[in-house]
């Protein structure tokens, strides 16, 4: 540290006096040193600042005013400056540390000027104690750090925008959410960079209007932001505007919360509730909720249908009203014990009392719904109508059994073919043995053992044929013939279902022409359906073999003799003249691979039912096969 003063002070006594006065009056400490660092002049402020008497300072090296290590380096620094003219401080000023007489240090602002002299340069140092300023600065920094800490700790996003919409403040949470560093965001246009594309125009317009004072900033808002990785997050904002002293808007400050997940969860909850409501309302089982005193709170449409009471009329009524009186008390005590926590669910058969006073057997299942504190809240119950289930189970089983039997019948043709083969074998042997035996006898070459053997063979083969017939009878007898009161039209419709598969395969339509309100017949449904199926199949075969695809029509009619006539009409070639006599005889067929059994069996079935099976060739083309069944006059 150095300073220079002109030596020719005597020539300028006025200037000297002025200078001394200035030194004395200066609030800043002023020290002038020579080129070797020796103190030549100090002013009173400097003496006060460092705590020395003038004589303690003048003539000593200025390094006395600096703490280690600066004091040692000062001489070297001066020498270097003199040699190279390279200065670090001169003309610039800087903050340095000062050392007082009492050994304490303090911050000071130092500026240095050089005084060029004929002999050697001097240096003037002007110093200001900045301890107080430093303290304020430290306090300020502390406050700033603390504020930043608050911002960073905040669980919400804090966002400050200037009136141009540029980001002026964003906290750590905000940076994390968006995936940027703070410095990348500061100064950037918020709407351009962070708002979902679709929402940009709207928000941009709103912001402009807000800054121009044409719109109020909503206290709360919500929008989708886009993160660095392109994901969108839904943020709800609390907003405030920042104004200058004149009241003009210079920016906005908002705190935002990421509600994406919460919204998602809420949406899921809502959907779940909706689904539950749908399940409840559309459950095939009767479903209800009731309070702990068994008052009905809700009922679904299945329950309403089951008991014939409108949902609205059920609400508020006691559930026990729906229960058969004999069972009310028992059920009430069971439900009571469940509410009391003795058991969690209840499932039992119950007799219900629907409005029309039928009695309805049902399975009732009840559970208790608890609140968060495990206190029983309400009861939820399901009711299944067992009468319906029992009935439908029985009907389905019956229909299935019948269709199986009819189906078995449709394989009758195949069965007949194999039976024919089985019978043909022994018949062939019998005929051949007999004829060979006769030839042997006629030739006169036969001996008795030969003839005896042949006759025995004939007997055995005849026996074999008989066995086949017996097993066939056994097979047919397996199904006992039954008699039921039957609706003819229903029977026809069932068979048509079966035959329709075949018919469609051959592009033939099965058309029904059934007379309504026919009296019931008493018949074996399976056997009668076998006959109908056989007639339809014959019709289909006739059409197919002759390349015709006209519909087959099935009629039901009540005849004047009070018998029901069922007929099957096809547009095939009709029955050939040479077949007319033998249509119903066994083993007579016009089909290439037919057995000639169907019509024969059919006729016996119908005869056994007290009806007749007949046919006629239709004028033009086609044939009509018909049979009659007596109606059940006796009921």
């Amino acid at each position, binding site marked *: 540290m150095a300073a220079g003063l002109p030596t020719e002070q005597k020539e300028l006594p006025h200037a000297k006096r002025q200078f001394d006065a200035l030194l004395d009056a200066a609030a800043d400490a002023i020290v002038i040193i020579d080129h070797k660092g020796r103190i030549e002049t100090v002013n009173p402020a400097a003496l006060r600042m460092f705590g020395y008497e003038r004589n303690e300072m003048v003539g000593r090296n200025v390094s006395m005013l600096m703490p280690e290590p600066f004091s040692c380096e000062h001489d070297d620094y001066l020498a270097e400056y003199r040699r190279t003219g390279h200065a670090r401080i001169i003309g610039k000023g800087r903050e340095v540390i000062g050392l007082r007489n009492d050994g304490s240090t303090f911050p000071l602002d130092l500026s240095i000027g050089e005084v060029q002299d004929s002999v050697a340069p001097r240096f003037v140092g002007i110093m200001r104690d900045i301890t107080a300023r430093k303290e304020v600065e430290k306090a300020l920094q502390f406050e700033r750090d603390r504020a930043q800490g608050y911002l960073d700790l905040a669980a919400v996003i804090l966002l400050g925008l200037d009136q141009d919409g540029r980001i002026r403040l964003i906290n750590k949470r905000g940076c994390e959410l968006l995936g940027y560093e703070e410095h990348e965001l500061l100064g950037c246009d918020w709407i351009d960079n962070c708002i979902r594309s679709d929402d940009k125009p709207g928000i941009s317009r709103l912001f402009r209007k807000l800054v121009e004072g044409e719109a109020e900033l909503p206290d709360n808002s919500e929008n989708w932001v886009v993160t660095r990785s392109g994901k969108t997050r839904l943020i709800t904002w609390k907003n405030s505007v920042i104004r200058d002293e004149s009241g003009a808007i210079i920016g906005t400050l908002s705190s935002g919360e990421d509600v994406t997940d919460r919204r998602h969860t809420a949406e899921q909850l809502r959907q779940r509730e909706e689904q539950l409501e749908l399940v409840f309302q559309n459950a095939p089982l009767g479903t209800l909720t009731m309070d702990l005193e068994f008052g009905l709170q809700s009922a679904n449409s299945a329950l309403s249908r089951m008991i014939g009471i409108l949902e609205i009329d059920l609400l508020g009524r006691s559930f026990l009203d729906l229960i058969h009186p004999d069972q009310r008390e028992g059920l009430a005590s069971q439900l009571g014990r469940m509410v009391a926590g003795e058991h969690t669910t209840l499932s039992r058969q119950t007799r219900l009392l629907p409005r029309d006073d039928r009695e309805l057997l049902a399975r009732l299942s009840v559970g208790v719904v608890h609140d968060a504190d495990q206190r029983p809240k309400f009861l939820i119950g399901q009711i299944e109508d067992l009468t319906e289930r029992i009935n439908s189970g029985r009907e389905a089983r019956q229909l299935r059994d019948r269709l199986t039997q009819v189906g078995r019948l449709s394989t009758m043709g195949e069965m007949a073919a194999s039976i024919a083969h089985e019978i043909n074998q022994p018949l062939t042997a019998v005929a051949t043995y007999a004829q060979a035996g006769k030839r042997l006898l006629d030739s006169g070459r036969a001996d008795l053992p030969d003839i005896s053997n042949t006759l025995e063979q004939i007997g*055995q083969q005849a026996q074999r044929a008989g066995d086949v017939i017996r097993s066939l009878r056994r097979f047919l007898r397996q199904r006992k013939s039954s008699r039921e009161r039957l609706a003819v039209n229903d029977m026809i419709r069932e068979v048509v279902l079966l035959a329709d598969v075949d018919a469609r395969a051959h592009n033939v339509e099965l058309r029904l022409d059934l007379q309504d309100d026919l009296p019931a017949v008493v018949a074996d449904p399976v056997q009668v359906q076998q006959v109908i199926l056989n007639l339809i199949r014959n019709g289909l075969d006739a059409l197919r073999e002759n390349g015709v695809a006209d519909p087959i029509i099935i009629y039901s009619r009540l005849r004047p003799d009070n018998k029901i006539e069922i007929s099957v009409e096809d547009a095939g070639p009709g029955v050939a003249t040479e077949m007319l006599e033998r249509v119903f005889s066994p083993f007579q067929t016009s089909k290439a691979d037919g057995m000639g059994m169907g019509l024969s069996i059919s006729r016996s079935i119908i005869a056994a039912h007290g009806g007749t099976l007949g046919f006629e060739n239709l004028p033009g083309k086609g044939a009509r096969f018909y049979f009659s069944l007596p109606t059940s006059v006796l009921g």
Partner: protein
Amino acid sequence: MRPRETEHRTTVFIVDDDAPVRDSLSMLMKSVGLEAETFASAMEFLESYDADRPGCLVLDIRMPGMSGLELQEQLNSMHAIIPIIFITGHGDVPMAVSAIQHGAADFIQKPFRDQDLLDRINKALEQDQHNRETLLEIRGIEQRLASLTPREHEVMELIVEGRPNKVIAGDLDVSQRTVEIHRARVMEKMKASSLAHLVRMVMRANQG
């Protein structure tokens, strides 16, 4: 040309899986003096089949294992000439039609009249005999043709085409006399009684 019955007697081969049917058929054959052999399956027949044995085959169309139709196929692939009469059951008509299309001699439905079957068997045996005679005749002609020298064969083909000796001599660039010598040789070796006879034999051989 009466080759049969020296080594082999004409036989009716019966193939049916049903023993009583087989046995009664065999008895029927014997009752009219026909030789019969029975087989319980198609395989059994194939194993003992000898193409040189004259006769006919009475074959059940439906059999477990190899069916009658499959046996027919096998025999066809072996170029067997034995006539086949199929025995069919009720409703086997489509199968029988197929059998006829593949060369079966005839078919008969069970149960049948003995005379109907015997008539068919007799017809089949006649056919077999005729087939065998034709076959022998063709083989004889082929043997004789094989005994001709290449030059004689050449001359024979021109003769059969109906060319006069003079033209043949020109075609082959030999003297007419040489052609006449060759011609005499051909007629002699082929045992041809006339030009017409020679032409018939050559046509026969070409057919076979």
